[in-house]
């Protein structure tokens, strides 16, 4: 006798332990198998693009902090690069190096959260997450030392950075750089070979290379699918062309590859920081920029390789003190396009880890 069955719809989110914010997935399930998924966004929409049109170029920097709050430094950097491109402002060399150091520290911090949350979604009861938060805490300490805040840094300025680093920063950073590889090894020891994680993440949520390019995925999601594309190498901004590092890429584009790429990127970031500290020149950290900046009429698109993907700011100036149009190319919003293709056919439990492996930040998705 054939039983009559029908699929049922289940709302994962907006309040759910593993949606990393207020994301909502409408899963249509057939038993435990996902038949359809529809992402529902907008629970954290604050209209930053509109708000920014009413504020001066400098006043917008704190707003960029609030996009991807796990990677504020990167957001600052992308924004100031766009403004500098728009207004043609030179940046002192020391400031460029400081920016690179901060951006890479931020990349480590963001990946720590991303990987930790991913492992937590896999069901490792908080342990990897807390180990990773321990290291993130050290990075936040460093940021606090430099700019006085732990989450919303507001450190970069148009034409440089807001302050030079204090004297005790470099010794502390050196300490961090020395110890960090050991901790990354520990993470590998903890779960990289764990059979259960392999069983859960390997081959799950495969994003083929061509599809990854077609849906404009970026960051670890793109590189996990085996595309060697990193804006730091492809279109070097700041002083990345003077630093040596590799681009880790995955092979199949499953959840494990994305996890692996993030872990390897942390190692590369440590390497970049080492070189940047060695090359750090003395000098000014900020070009004199008028308080109310009037960039010439025109438009600029500044993009960087943020921890979660290509973060771009598209600015249009009408020669007034505020941007005429302020658009954020949010990497995680676009990476989410892949969600449906990756999820269909997998189980509820996989939905959570596939979603976790994209590593999104809702403040950036919804803006």
């Amino acid at each position: 006798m054939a039983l009559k069955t029908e699929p049922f719809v289940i709302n994962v989110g907006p309040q759910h332990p593993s949606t990393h914010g207020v994301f909502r997935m409408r899963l249509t399930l057939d038993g435990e198998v996902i038949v359809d998924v529809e992402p529902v966004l907008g629970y954290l929409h604050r209209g930053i693009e509109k708000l920014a049109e009413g504020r001066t170029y400098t006043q917008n920097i704190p707003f960029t902090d609030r996009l991807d709050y796990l990677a504020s430094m990167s957001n600052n950097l992308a924004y100031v690069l766009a403004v500098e491109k728009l207004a043609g402002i030179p940046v002192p060399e020391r400031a460029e190096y400081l920016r690179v150091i901060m951006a890479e520290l931020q990349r480590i911090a963001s990946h720590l959260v991303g990987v930790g949350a991913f492992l937590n979604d896999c069901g490792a009861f908080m342990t990897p997450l807390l180990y990773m938060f321990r290291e993130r805490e050290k990075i936040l300490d460093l940021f606090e030392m430099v700019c006085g805040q732990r989450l919303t840094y507001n450190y970069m300025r148009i034409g440089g950075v807001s302050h030079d680093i204090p004297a005790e920063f470099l010794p502390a950073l050196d300490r961090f750089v020395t110890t960090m590889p050991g901790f990354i090894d520990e993470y590998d020891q903890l779960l990289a070979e764990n059979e259960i994680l392999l069983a859960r993440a390997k081959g799950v949520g495969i994003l083929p290379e061509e599809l990854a390019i077609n849906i404009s995925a970026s960051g670890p999601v793109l590189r996990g699918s085996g595309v060697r594309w990193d804006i730091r190498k492809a279109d070097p901004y700041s002083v990345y062309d003077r630093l040596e590092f590799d681009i880790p890429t995955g092979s199949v584009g499953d959840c494990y590859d994305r996890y692996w790429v993030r872990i390897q990127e942390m190692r590369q970031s440590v390497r970049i920081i080492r070189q940047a500290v060695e090359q750090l020149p003395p000098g000014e950290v900020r070009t004199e920029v008028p308080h109310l900046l009037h960039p010439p009429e025109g438009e600029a698109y500044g993009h960087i390789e943020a921890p979660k993907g290509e973060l771009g700011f598209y600015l249009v100036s009408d020669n007034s003190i505020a941007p005429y149009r302020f658009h954020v190319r949010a990497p995680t919003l676009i990476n989410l396009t892949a969600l449906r293709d990756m999820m269909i056919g997998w189980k509820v439990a996989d939905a959570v880890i596939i979603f976790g492996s994209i590593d999104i930040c809702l403040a950036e998705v919804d803006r």
Partner: protein
Amino acid sequence: MTLAFSGEEIASQVEEQLPGSIVDSSQDSLVVNSESWLAVATFLKDTPGLDFDYLTSITAVDYYDYFEMVYQLTSLKHNHSLVVKTRCYEREKPKLPSVVSLWRGADFQEREIYDLMGISFDGHPNLKRIFLWQGFQGHPLRKDYL
């Protein structure tokens, strides 16, 4: 370094294939006629040597007289980029062809523009509001929305 193509360079190539499609071209961008935009996009994506396989970003800007769509195209293969623009002079019910069939990365971005700017895209598979709720009045990113 990503090679940023100048609009003029590409304009001549496009004009050869699709005459009458280019409205304007400058050093940093290429403005395409909105009717022939889909054809131009297909040309840009599929022509060997150009191969713009990666749609980096889509934006719409409200210039009161017209809406300007800005497409940042990149080729991961050759590492070059191009900015293409297309304009829509209709204000009540602006309409443009969707590029989702070419680059699926446009999916959420076009929905976002539809939501916040009010431009509807022909051929988009799921054109619904993305951030604001269904039934929201107006389109907040328009300059006349207060």
